[in-house]
């Protein structure tokens, strides 16, 4: 084994790929009634992957596979959170899928491959690996969104996602080719080394950078490249929406970190203004348009767009503090979003999606506990103390003020206040309106327990954010 092929650091990827292939094969020999075996195998694989990731985690940055793979502490933490997000979303969606005849082995295989794509992006050290990771993730997600194949709306949103995703990949690839043309290398660390020699005024560099930022913005779903987000969130089966809203967000953050910070960190003055525009537009459009929504999945989609604006704020700070804040924001946002979609899944039944805002009316009378869980999640998303969303927003705004962009911090706070209206409206519907739907909650014990823990975690992290903040500070420095 040569020094350039260090397989040990890539054990998590190797394991997940092998596990996904084994599950694909095992699933063929399992009858429809025993499909739960596939589900359990997937869960065990996730647990084992987490164990392997911790066991072979690196303390220092290691680049291997001839400069295509990087292992670093940030990657380890992001990968662990990805497993967590995937496990939670699969756990929440099991009953939903079973009730709708979507509980098939391929669902879990596609989810595992999507997760592998996320891991590849997290550990990408070259433009080539980044692109392959993006494609692996996107292809699996297109398949998942269209999974309910007889549903016209799902098929339509999958088609939109596919076409717009292809455009985004094209943009990303075009930008990469420009950067490769200018720097003569695909390796991100080499690109970072060569940028000072090329000079920031190079036309090719600016051109490539612009296309890369567009590609990243598409994948993030930042305004004005957000058109696919509401349609995909609304059209896909809720279980898939939950998945699309969780692990891929971590991937987008990793994509921005690897591409813009690791590779093009020297050109921060060039990409900062672009991200400022994206962030301000995302916060504005996301928060304002969300007010007009009557479908909670669509509302959460616009809410995602506004949160993406916040994550971009942290990245554009261009300081270690900013990256830490963005990472903290991403991780806590994913935790909160998973919980919110989990509540929608909890309330859904056979033939009842529970995705209209009105379906939440009077939830407090029907189930006081889950109404309070949802309220905690919603308050956290809105950024109300003492929930974790507040700490995350605070960290990002501190980072922004740290680089002297006080006006931008003001804009962020202003739009957060606007956003609070539609979040608190959900709480009002749950507590002060008479129930419209009187069907019982059918969810099983596992879903109830984990979802409750999810809601409490948002509160606990908000009260004691130090642990996660320290972790983020330790892995990005």
């Amino acid at each position, binding site marked *: 084994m040569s020094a350039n*092929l260090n397989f040990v650091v890539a054990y998590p990827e190797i394991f997940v790929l092998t596990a996904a292939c084994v599950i694909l094969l095992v699933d063929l020999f399992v009858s429809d009634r025993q499909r739960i075996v596939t589900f359990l195998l997937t869960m065990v694989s996730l647990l084992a992957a987490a164990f392997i990731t911790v066991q072979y985690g690196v303390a220092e940055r290691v680049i291997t596979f*001839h400069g295509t793979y990087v292992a670093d502490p940030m990657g380890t933490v992001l990968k662990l959170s990805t497993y967590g997000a995937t496990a939670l979303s699969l756990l929440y969606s099991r009953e939903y899928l079973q009730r709708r005849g979507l509980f098939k082995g391929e669902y879990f295989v596609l989810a595992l491959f999507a997760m592998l794509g996320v891991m590849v992006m997290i550990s990408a050290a070259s433009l*080539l*690996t980044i692109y392959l*990771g993006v494609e692996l993730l996107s292809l699996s997600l297109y398949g998942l969104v*269209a999974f309910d194949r007889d549903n016209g709306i799902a098929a339509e949103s999958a088609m939109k996602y596919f076409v717009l995703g292809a455009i985004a990949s094209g943009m990303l690839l075009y930008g990469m080719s420009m950067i490769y043309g200018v720097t003569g290398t695909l390796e991100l660390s080499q690109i970072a080394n060569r940028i000072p020699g090329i000079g920031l005024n190079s036309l090719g560099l600016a051109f490539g950078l612009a296309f890369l930022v567009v590609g990243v913005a598409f994948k993030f779903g930042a305004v004005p490249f957000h058109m696919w987000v509401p349609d995909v969130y609304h059209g896909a089966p809720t279980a898939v929406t939950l998945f699309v809203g969780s692990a891929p967000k971590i991937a987008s953050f990793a994509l921005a970190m690897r591409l813009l910070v690791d590779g093009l960190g020297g050109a921060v003055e060039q990409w900062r203004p672009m991200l400022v525009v994206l962030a301000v537009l995302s916060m504005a459009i996301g928060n304002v348009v969300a007010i007009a929504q009557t479908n909670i999945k669509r509302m959460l989609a616009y809410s995602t767009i506004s949160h993406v604006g916040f994550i971009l704020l942290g990245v554009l700070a261009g300081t270690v503090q900013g990256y830490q804040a963005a990472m903290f924001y991403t991780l806590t946002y994913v935790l909160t979003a998973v919980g919110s979609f989990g509540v929608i899944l909890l309330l859904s039944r056979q033939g009842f999606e529970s995705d209209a805002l009105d379906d939440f009316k009077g939830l407090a009378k029907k189930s006081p506990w889950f109404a309070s869980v949802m309220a905690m999640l919603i308050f956290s998303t809105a950024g109300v103390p003492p929930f974790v969303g507040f700490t995350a927003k605070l960290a990002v705004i501190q980072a922004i003020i740290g680089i002297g962009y006080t006006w931008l911090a003001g804009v962020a706070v202003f739009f957060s206040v606007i956003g609070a209206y539609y979040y608190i409206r959900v709480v009002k519907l749950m507590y002060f309106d008479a129930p419209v739907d009187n069907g019982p909650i059918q969810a099983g014990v596992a879903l109830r327990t984990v979802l409750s823990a999810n809601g409490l975690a948002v509160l606990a992290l908000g009260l004691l954010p130090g642990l996660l903040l320290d972790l983020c500070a330790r892995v990005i420095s």
Partner: protein
Amino acid sequence: MSFTEILFYVFSAVLVVSALGVITARNPVYSALWLVFAFFNSAIIWMLLEAEFLAIILILVYVGAVMVLFLFVVMMLDIKVEELRAGFTRYAWLGLPIALLVIGEIGSVVWVKSQDDKALGLSSVASPAAYAADYSNTKALGQLLYTEYLYPLQLAASILLIAIVAAIVLTMRKRSGQKVQDIGAQISVKAKDRVRIVKVAAVQPETGNTVEGQS
């Protein structure tokens, strides 16, 4: 002009003609066959560029597999060429300037003489030295793919796998009244299940009556 250059110009000319054939042929089957011919000529040009592995792969994969499949599809679908061509004059005003622009761009890259080293003119790039006669392109590619590009290669393979899985998930389903082969049953069939020998009582010839009638 060396022999290689003459070969290059001959095959390039044929390639251009066949490419024009692809877009001007009225019958889609002819179009597909022109495309096969174009692939074949490009393969030869690659061969001249010492990229023999790519040349062979182009013939094997594109001509041998993709185009044959394409021909099947073209023959099975009822494609109305006139409908496809209906919008030609309507969009020509948009297409023509774009085509001219692209031709101009290519021309400027190929013919513009380099003023300094940074220009994109062809003369600014030195032509690579030819490899020795025993140089193996296939071996070099293989060595790169399985060492330096091992990780991307495996990822590309996973992407293909997931494409297959997703395509099958989205298209395969159990439909009622479908006529499918049961291969197991076909193989385990016995001769006596296939041929049923039925004793049929011999039919008495009715010739007797006619004989009687005649007599």
